[in-house]
């Protein structure tokens, strides 16, 4: 196990120990969020096993909160299906990215892997500089979150709707985690432009588009950036190469 040197760029984890510790840290946060999901779902009128099936089978936080949110609003529960799916589309994009990191096996091997494709596991994986660490990051983060998210949901569904996640500072946990995981990858001007562009697109669309659409439309920024070679460095094949970060992570 290697410790993170103090001068490691950004929040790059840089070793097996730090990767696993970060995964467990995110898992604990997911457990706390799962607790509030279980409580919200119970408050929305879903029975215990419906709540558990969402966390075990859907396993995508944003989609789950959207589902119970729409289901709680009354009317037909089928209106909750497109809301959940819309927020789940970005996982399909993540799958394309992760196909470069994870070994490509036969379909039966991809079945359990695909289940763990979520924001956090993707962010952890692409935030690592080298292939073995990227795989370790994906699996440790995915498994830690799956276990703790479901335990949290279980407790939340049993305790009921009296929990308030804002009181534990969890509002800041998601944005801070994703920022810290993105940061080491923002080594080129182009990558920084894509991050700022994606955030701006989502920001503008928030009041106009239904939930899920603002984030999805940010994918257009990646599409435009990917279609042009400009701004790519010669080491573009492996943009997270550690030697790249010598350039500095300061914007």
């Amino acid at each position, binding site marked *: 196990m290697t410790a993170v040197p103090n001068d490691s760029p950004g929040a790059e984890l840089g070793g097996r120990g730090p990767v696993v510790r970060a995964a467990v840290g995110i898992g604990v946060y997911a457990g706390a969020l799962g607790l509030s999901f279980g409580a919200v779902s119970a408050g929305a009128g879903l029975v215990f096993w419906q709540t558990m099936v969402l966390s075990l089978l*859907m396993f995508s936080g944003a989609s789950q909160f959207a589902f119970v949110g729409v289901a709680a609003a009354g009317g037909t529960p089928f209106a909750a299906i497109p809301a959940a799916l819309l927020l789940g589309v970005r996982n399909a994009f993540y799958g394309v990215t992760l*196909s470069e990191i994870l070994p490509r096996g036969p379909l039966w091997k991809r079945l359990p892997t695909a289940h763990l494709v979520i924001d956090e596991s993707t962010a952890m994986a692409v935030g690592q500089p080298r292939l073995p660490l990227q795989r370790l990051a994906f699996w440790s983060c995915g498994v830690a979150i799956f276990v703790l998210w479901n335990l949290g949901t279980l407790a939340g569904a049993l305790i009921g709707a009296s929990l308030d996640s804002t009181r534990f500072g969890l509002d800041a946990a998601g944005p801070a985690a994703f920022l810290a995981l993105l940061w080491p990858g923002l080594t080129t001007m182009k990558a920084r432009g894509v991050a700022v562009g994606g955030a701006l697109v989502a920001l503008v669309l928030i009041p106009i588009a239904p939930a899920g659409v603002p984030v999805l439309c940010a994918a257009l920024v990646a599409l435009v950036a990917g279609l042009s070679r400009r701004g790519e460095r010669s080491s573009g094949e492996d943009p997270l190469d550690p030697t790249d970060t010598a350039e500095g992570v300061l914007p």
Partner: protein
Amino acid sequence: MTPVWIAVIIAAVGTYLLKLAGMSLPESVLNHPTVRRIAHYLPIALLAALVAVQLVDGGGHWAVNWRTLVAVAAAIVLLLLKRGFLTVFLTAIAVCALLQFVPGP
């Protein structure tokens, strides 16, 4: 089976199939240089957008929680100081939790 159960199962299976679909593109497509470049930038754009939405989406309108903003600003300062992931992450949570004791402006 109640309508809620049917909706739960359709939405859950659909969400899973979306994840599987992304991982099941043919290798010839995945190895295309343009696809590789787009795949590199996709998580950057989507996760940055997700951060923006988590910070300012009040449910279909802009809404800013100043405590969350201050906590994330603290996280950015620590990132500029090149602190490790857990330091950044836990500090943001701690700052946000402590600010709950401060009356809002």
